[in-house]
């Protein structure tokens, strides 16, 4: 059974249709990449999957884990195993990283009927994941993302993913704002989590990230539609020829 199945998805933001009929199937263990120019709808797709309320789905279905994703609240989707690494992680002043993540993990564990972890059990786990992402321990007690550099915020997203162990991780432009060293660290973190039970949807503007997180499938999103799909070599082709190369096939989607 597929993990995620998107059928003819149309979605609008503030009354403007952004996604114009997306079909995409992701099986367990697969890594898919969505590439596309600015404004093509990549982040909207990520937001719709995470059930952002202000994104209105006007047509189509999404099945996740065999359940209707569009019936779920954001926290239910999260508890079902969907994780979104944000393009712009927000700051939560006054709440420590450790407290926030323990609350999140326990919410997920509770949903799954697992026992909640106390601080004694949780901290070693968090420390371990932070080491994986080469994050200093001082970030344990710092308020969530407050005063973090762009790169630290992105690494913190992957730490959260490593703690929450989702079945589908959507990475929304996780590479933006990262220098090459940080990019490698983040990619290592992601690669260490690849398994036959976990799938990834890597949303990116540049091919660069895909040198490190090598996808099984690449899809090109232009003007709200997937205009081309292929293997990892498609990303290289795009890098070479630019997104303009895909345009003739969009059948009037763009000027």
């Amino acid at each position: 059974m597929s993990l995620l199945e998107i059928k003819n998805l149309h979605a609008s933001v503030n009354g403007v249709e952004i996604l114009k009929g997306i079909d995409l199937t992701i099986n367990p263990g697969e890594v898919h990449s969505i590439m596309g120019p600015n404004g093509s709808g990549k982040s909207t797709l990520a937001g719709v999957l995470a059930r952002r309320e202000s994104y209105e789905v006007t047509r189509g279905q999404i099945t996740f884990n065999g359940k209707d994703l569009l019936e779920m609240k954001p926290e239910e989707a999260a508890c079902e195993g969907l994780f979104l690494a944000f393009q712009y992680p927000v700051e939560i002043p006054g709440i420590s990283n450790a407290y926030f993540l323990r609350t999140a993990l326990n919410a997920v564990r509770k949903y799954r009927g697992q026992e909640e972890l106390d601080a004694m059990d949780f901290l070693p786990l968090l420390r371990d994941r932070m080491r994986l992402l080469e994050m200093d321990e001082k970030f344990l007690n710092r308020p969530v993302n407050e005063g973090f550099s762009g790169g630290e915020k992105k690494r913190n997203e992957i730490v959260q993913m490593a703690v929450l162990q989702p079945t589908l991780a959507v990475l929304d432009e996780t590479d933006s704002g990262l220098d090459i060293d940080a990019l490698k660290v983040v990619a290592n973190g992601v690669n260490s989590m690849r398994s036959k039970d976990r799938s990834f949807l890597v949303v990116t503007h540049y091919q660069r990230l895909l040198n490190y997180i090598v996808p099984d499938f690449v899809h090109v999103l232009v003007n709200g539609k997937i205009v081309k799909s292929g293997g990892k070599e498609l990303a290289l082709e795009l890098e070479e020829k630019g997104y303009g190369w895909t345009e003739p096939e969009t059948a009037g989607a763009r000027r």
Partner: protein
Amino acid sequence: MSSVDQIQDLTKQEYKWGFVTSVEEDRLPPGLNEDVVRALVAKKGEPDFMLEWRLKAYRHWASLQAKDAEPKWANVHYAPIDYQAISYYSAPKAKKELKSLDEVDPEILDTYAKLGIPLHEQKLLAGVAVDAVFDSVSVATTFKAKLAEAGVIFCSFSEAVKNHPDLVKKYLGSVVPYTDNFFAALNSAVFSDGSFCYVPKGVRCPMELSTYFRINAQNTGQFERTLIIADEGAYVSYLEGCTAPVRDENQLHAAVVELIAHDNATIKYSTVQNWYPGDKEGKGGIYNFVTKRGKCLGKNSKISWTQVETGSAITWKYPSCILQGDNSVGEFYSVALTNNYQQADTGTKMIHIGKNTRSTIVSKGISAGHGQNTYRGGVKILKGAKGARNYTQCDSLLIGDKCGAHTFPYIEVKNASARMEHEASTSKIGEDQIFYLQQRGISKEEAVSMIINGFCKAVFRELPMEFAVEAQKLLSISLEGSVG
């Protein structure tokens, strides 16, 4: 059960402490005049100096009342209060002198149990002495012996009048004179009880002191009086927590708190205020018109106010510091939350008189529903206050689009060497923040509660641990239903 669960459960509750205890009452008929003051003094068996003082206060209040001089400047709105419809004294009937808790009316003890005030063992374990004020008369006081050993006097105000009249005479009204304001005058005339604490020279009070006030009798305005004196080099931390049952009619609460810190003394005064706020339509609820002021009389003295105000229909309250001694320090940390139709006009006054006096003000206002939240703060640097410093931070958080946040800072500087800093912000609780937390599996209600607690962190960390937990729970309860 984890604390998260508890908070979640709590957010689903109606005002939990809305129950009424049926206890036989000894009360005066409604109305206020000189005879009522005399009757009150007689009932309480107070000495002449108290009668004289109360009568002066009453006459002052009556003159203000005649001039219609009830303060109207606060940013709150309410129907006129009929002071003649209030009964000014109500006490659970004392059958005899009480020697131990076993003799206390079991219904009263049951009330405390419902309130979660474990008067017996649990407080013992927690090391907190409780002077429990039930309606207007203290019915039980614990830990007396241990405090007495340290030389600390901690008792009900009535007992202090009886047993320590000299101290009462010396300090009562020395920080908040009965002429101070309308409600202070009213309180001075008719206050029925409260707490008294004296910490002698060089003594560090061996435990946190706490008093739980509770309004119970219908139509009985509660007029508490608290007086705390820290003598040279003494230290005391005092906790005050309030909760009141559901009532339809508005109830007046006009307390006065006076603190006096001598040379090198420190007083820390923490409040969690959770009087009944009225229902969702704004019906009922307590009018909380309180005068709280501390005087840093001696050099190097320090007074620190921390308050978490979540209850009451209307709050009118400005815990202030008079920084008289050189190098004295005043602090005010406040979280005020207004939901539904609650109104709060609260803040502080820091009056710098001595040299090198310092004050810190951190105010966090949260408005939800139709709540109106006003910060009103005054910082005054007098001529002689060379080298005075003030830091003020004043943040407002709005939830929804029907509430309001208002800020009125008054700054008056008469010495050019003063250094003043003022920071203020107003923000709406962010959809992005809520979504971020939800995406990690946290429910919307809990996400809001978390963001609010983070917003209030700078104040909560000033509270004693036990109170900080309670304060977080209260915020969650108070915000119930405010986020769609």
